[in-house]
């Protein structure tokens, strides 16, 4: 969490560099001086020192500081020698049948062939996809649009609809927007009040849990209030 750092008093004077149009420049975004901007690790930053450090890091590719021996002075020019170019010369010649270049071009024709075919029915397409994945059945349920999943969840009991959030990340927040809930008070009657976190309707467990709509509303406020504390 970012703690707001009050700028020094000098910046607080209107007209000083910290002020623009009479409004204080966001003090939270900037620590005192030319520190790193918010969100970056503090070791990195800008300024001449950092630029020098970066230059050193870039140059050290050829002479890593961890290596006990300095890099040979010819290491860079040698990269420019014609040696690495030799394989390229063979490309201009006719490729032999077993040449890797040929097999590469064969691979590339594959997607072309698929796109040239007429559209496959979705069932066949799915079956093929399944075979590629090694026989694992696809997750058809999570692939449905949110509104359909909401319809499905609406017929579940409220607690089970909420429990679907642990199925996978796709389901995490779906229950929050389900249009209608099937709330069974008996379900929540059994809920214990764990560490001060009141059950949804758990407060009414012994006395008047046959509450009217109005009372239920009050209860929700109560939960919200408790959570704020």
């Amino acid at each position, binding site marked *: 969490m970012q703690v707001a750092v009050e700028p020094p008093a000098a910046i607080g004077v209107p007209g000083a560099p910290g002020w623009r149009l009479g409004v204080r420049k966001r003090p939270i975004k900037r620590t005192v001086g030319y520190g790193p901007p918010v969100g970056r690790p503090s070791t990195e930053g800008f300024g001449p020192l950092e630029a020098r450090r970066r230059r050193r890091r870039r140059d050290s590719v050829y002479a890593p500081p961890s290596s006990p021996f300095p890099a040979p002075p010819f290491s860079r020019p040698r990269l420019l020698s014609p040696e690495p170019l030799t394989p390229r010369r063979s490309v201009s010649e006719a490729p032999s049948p077993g040449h890797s270049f040929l097999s590469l071009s064969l691979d590339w024709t594959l997607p072309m062939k698929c796109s040239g075919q007429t559209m496959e*029915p*979705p069932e*066949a397409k799915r079956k093929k996809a399944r075979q590629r994945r090694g026989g694992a059945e696809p997750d*058809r349920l999570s*692939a449905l649009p949110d509104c359909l999943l909401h319809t499905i969840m609406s017929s579940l009991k409220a607690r089970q609809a909420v*429990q679907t959030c642990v199925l996978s990340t796709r389901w995490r927040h779906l229950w929050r927007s389900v249009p209608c809930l099937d709330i069974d008070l008996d379900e929540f009657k059994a809920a214990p009040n*764990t560490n001060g976190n009141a059950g949804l309707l758990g407060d009414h467990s012994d006395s008047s849990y046959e509450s009217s709509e109005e009372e239920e509303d009050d209860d929700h406020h109560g939960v919200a209030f408790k959570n704020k504390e």
Partner: protein
Amino acid sequence: MEVDKGKGEAEETRKVAEADRDTVTLKSSDGKLFEVSKEAAARLSTVLAGMIAGGSIDDNGTDLKQIGSEALENVVDYCNKHANSIPSAALISSSISFNTAPFKEPEEWERKFVDRLSHDALFDLVEAANFLGMERLLDVTCHKISEMMKGKSPDQIREVFNIKNDYTKEELEEIRQELAWAFYDD
């Protein structure tokens, strides 16, 4: 002059016959043709109703590229069966507001209709019904899916629907603590 008049008449009768044709031909993604009564199609599917009203129905088969032949066969089957059963008033009014209208329990034949479907066919049918805007069929199939989920633990649901758990252990623990009131018994 006489001949011309005869021609015009013939054309007119042909047009009338076309308009009066009481079936719609639908073509699945793999080119199979299915016929369904115009009345049932217009009543059950908002998309087909719009197409019929807008005159974009092709006599040689209206292309439905999103729907495979198996799913379309089920859709047509459902339309035909529905045409035979007596539609209730509640059914027609339920199409007005999809999400808020109280769900009417599936009738016996609808239950049988979805029960005989395989797992994949059921989801194909859901997708087809969603594409065609067939709200009643969508309700019935979604109800079937939720029945498959009912009373099962998250682990069991994952197994039935092949849902891959992509949470980390820490995330799962966090959710369970946050929603402790929903997970008190496990």
